[in-house]
């Protein structure tokens, strides 16, 4: 073993990504869906940092990007939760399948 390589990290991040996707597609609770999205974003963060460290160590692009992603994810979550709260007021539920009046 030569320590943890890029491949391992990528393996983790991609797993994370798909776990997130899976969660997003299957969870009916909107908050859970938001959390799944966080997972996806985190997998991206991992990617960036790993690439930055292993491949392009002389540039800081990846790191910065990660920071911004974290910040924006927070903003997104804030708005999303506000919307979900509002939705709860009218629907009395935060089950995503209950909010499907608009279709076809």
């Amino acid at each position, binding site marked *: 073993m030569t320590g943890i390589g890029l491949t391992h990290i990528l393996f983790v991040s991609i797993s994370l990504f798909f776990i997130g996707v899976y969660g997003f597609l299957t969870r009916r609770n*909107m908050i859970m869906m938001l959390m799944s999205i966080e997972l996806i974003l985190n997998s991206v963060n991992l990617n960036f940092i790993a690439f930055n460290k292993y491949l392009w160590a002389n540039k800081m692009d990846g790191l*910065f*990007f990660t920071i911004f*992603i974290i910040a924006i994810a927070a903003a997104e979550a804030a708005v*999303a939760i506000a*919307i*979900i709260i*509002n939705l709860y007021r009218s629907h009395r539920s935060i089950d995503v399948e209950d*909010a499907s009046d608009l279709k076809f």
Partner: protein
Amino acid sequence: MINELLLMKSELAVTAVIFILLFIKISDTTSNETVLKIVNALLLLNVAFGFCCMDTTGELFSGMFKTNALMSFEKNMLNIGTLLISLLSYEWLRNHRHLPEFFVLMLSSLLGMFFMISSGNFLIFYLGLELSTIPVAALCNFDMEKKQSSEAAMKMIMSSAFSSGILLFGISMMYGTTGTLSFAELPMLLTGSPLQVFSFILLFTGFAFKLSVVPFHLWTADVYEGSPVAVTSFLSVISKGSIVFIFLTTLYNAFAPMGEVWYNLIFLLSVATMIVGNLFALRQQNMKRFLAFSSIAQVGFILIGISGGGQNGTASSVYFMLVYIFSNLGAFGAVQLISSFSGKETIDSYKGLYQTNPLLSWVLTISLFSLAGIPPTAGFFGKFFLLASGAEKGNYILITIAALNMIVSLYYYLRVVRAIFMEKNEQPVAAIQGSIYEKAGLLICVAGIIAVGLYSHFYEYIYALSAF
């Protein structure tokens, strides 16, 4: 210093307006009418300011932000669109509790778009994208008491969060394979390896999502239908416009080496988009939903223009967006007016509209004809140039499919026209007395629809700008 500030003048102007609005919000004593007056005046100023010093070209933040005359022009187009939306939503906004917030959110989104358009780096691009998306999601919820509105907002934020997750994944892969985030450096580093292609496709889906390209379009109709008309029109015109602009820059510059991939991608997707959009539009009853699908179909056409590449591709797409702003806002404006005065939004309720509101009917009809691409409206020219740009590549299958799709789209536009002019109704929409703002807005739209097409200098100007 002044020069550097001038490069960001559009952004700065919008920021200034946002701050003024924030102050107004804080003082919270002015009536809605006054606020609207102020806002419209500011937006008008903003447009006027936008046309000053247009040809400034340059970069800031070591290439992360760049601008040129074309981008200034694009931003101005979006400014005009925003002004029009504000004018056209007068009736709805007049009674709204959170008027200043509406504008703050909308303008923030606009600001995000400006940054996105000017971005020279994935980071700025991502920031702009999110800044333009998240406030709109909040805007979607602006009919607070309506169930549909919050559903639409939820769908918007969920879908866009998911999409930006995928997009980011793509960006990260792209970063991993090339080591850069800068658009300028990217072309030299692209090798066309499968992983790069795949990450490009993921990136592409981010654009496609915002543009509502099939199969990434599914949120569009629901969100459009549930949101207030003003937001719908903002989404379908301004937001789409900004994405088209940045799409052009990235494809033509950053991903130029992948030309073949994205050409085929666009070919496939534009066919799917036109067909699916049209087929869905055929049987819609709600005007907003109907316009949503029609705008999906329009995107198919825009993709054809984009596929052409080069100066023609840029010019035709930008020109079409200009036309599209006027046409679509004309249509949405009429829908908005009818909806806010009578609450009716279905095509059936438009029956006999001509008897009570002849002028409004003509405005709506002309806008729809422009969307359908019927001369002498600007839509005809727009579509013609899009197809011309696409035809340059010699892919006549695509052009033929597009041309045939124009027939289908004509069919459903005519459905509305038929309802307005030909069918009888016991209780048509009552005569509508719009305010001066709405009249001005509609007038600008109609004037735009007529003039932008027939007066060829618009196109020639855009073409000249597209040389960048």
